[in-house]
C-alpha cells in the first residue's frame, strides 16, 4: 500500500491545475486563487481519514474548493460596497427622463470575430482587464449568474441582496464593462 504522502502528492499533481482554473474563472486574483487551492488541499489532507471514497477524489476536492470560494464571496460582500455602487451610478446615468438611452450612453456596435482565434484572444485579454476594474461584488454576481448558471433568487439568498439591488448591480456591472470595452477595444 502506498503511503499517505505519496497519495497526496499524486492528488496535487493530478488535480491542482483543474482546481486552479476553476477558481480563476470565479475570482479575478491569481494569488487569491492559489491560496484557495492550497486551502482546499489542506482541508482535504486534514480529512483524509474521513474520506470514504464514495465520490471520486476529484469531485471531493471540487466540493471543498467550492465551499472555500463561497466563504470568500460571503466575506467580500460588504454592505458598503453595494451602497457605493448604488450611489455612484443611478439609472439617470444611463437613461434620460423618458427612460431613453442618454446620448453619450448609446450602446455601440462591437466587432469581435470569435472565429478568429487571435482576435478572440485579444478581446479576452481586454475583457479580463476590464473585469478587474469591477467591484468584487459585481464580479461575484456575474460569475454566479453566468458561470455557475444560478437563478437570481438563489444568488440573492446566497449574498443576502434584495432582488432590486441584484438587478441594479448586474446592470451597472454590464454598463461599466461596456464603457471600458468601448474605450479599450472598440476604438481600434
Amino acid at each position: 500500500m502506498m503511503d499517505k504522502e505519496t497519495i497526496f502528492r499524486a492528488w496535487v499533481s493530478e488535480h491542482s491545475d483543474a482546481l486552479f482554473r476553476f477558481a480563476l474563472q470565479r475570482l479575478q486574483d491569481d494569488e487569491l486563487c492559489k491560496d484557495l487551492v492550497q486551502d482546499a488541499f489542506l482541508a482535504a489532507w486534514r480529512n483524509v481519514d474521513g474520506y470514504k471514497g464514495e465520490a471520486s477524489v476529484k469531485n471531493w476536492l471540487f466540493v471543498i474548493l467550492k465551499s472555500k470560494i463561497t466563504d470568500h464571496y460571503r466575506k467580500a460582500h460588504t454592505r458598503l460596497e453595494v451602497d457605493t455602487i448604488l450611489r455612484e451610478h443611478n439609472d439617470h446615468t444611463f437613461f434620460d427622463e423618458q427612460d431613453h438611452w442618454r446620448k453619450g450612453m448609446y450602446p455601440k456596435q462591437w466587432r469581435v470575430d470569435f472565429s478568429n482565434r487571435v482576435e478572440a484572444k485579444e478581446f479576452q485579454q481586454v475583457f479580463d482587464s476590464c473585469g478587474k476594474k469591477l467591484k468584487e461584488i459585481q464580479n461575484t454576481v456575474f460569475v454566479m449568474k453566468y458561470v455557475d448558471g444560478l437563478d437570481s433568487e438563489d444568488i440573492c439568498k446566497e449574498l443576502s441582496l434584495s432582488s432590486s439591488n441584484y438587478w441594479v448591480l448586474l446592470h451597472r456591472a454590464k454598463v461599466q464593462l461596456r464603457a471600458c470595452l468601448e474605450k479599450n477595444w472598440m476604438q481600434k
Partner: protein
Amino acid sequence: MSRTISCKQAVDLISKKEEAKLSATQRFALWRHLAVCSLCRTFSVQNKIIKKALTQEDYRVLTTEEKEVIVKTVLQTKP
C-alpha cells in the same frame, strides 16, 4: 400592459430573459421594442458577447514550484 415599453424597461427585460423569467406579455413587449429600437438591439448583442467572454475557459496552469509549495505547506501540518 402599456402599449410600448421604454429602453430602460427593455434592458431590464433583456437581463430577465436570460433566466427565462418573462411572461408571454413581456416577451411580446420586448420583441416589439427591439423591432424598432436599434440601440437596445445593440445592447442585446453586447450582452451576449459579455456572457460569452465570461464563460471562456482559462488555460493557465500552476508551475511545478507552485505545486511543490502546496505539497510542502500542507504536509507540514498534521493530518
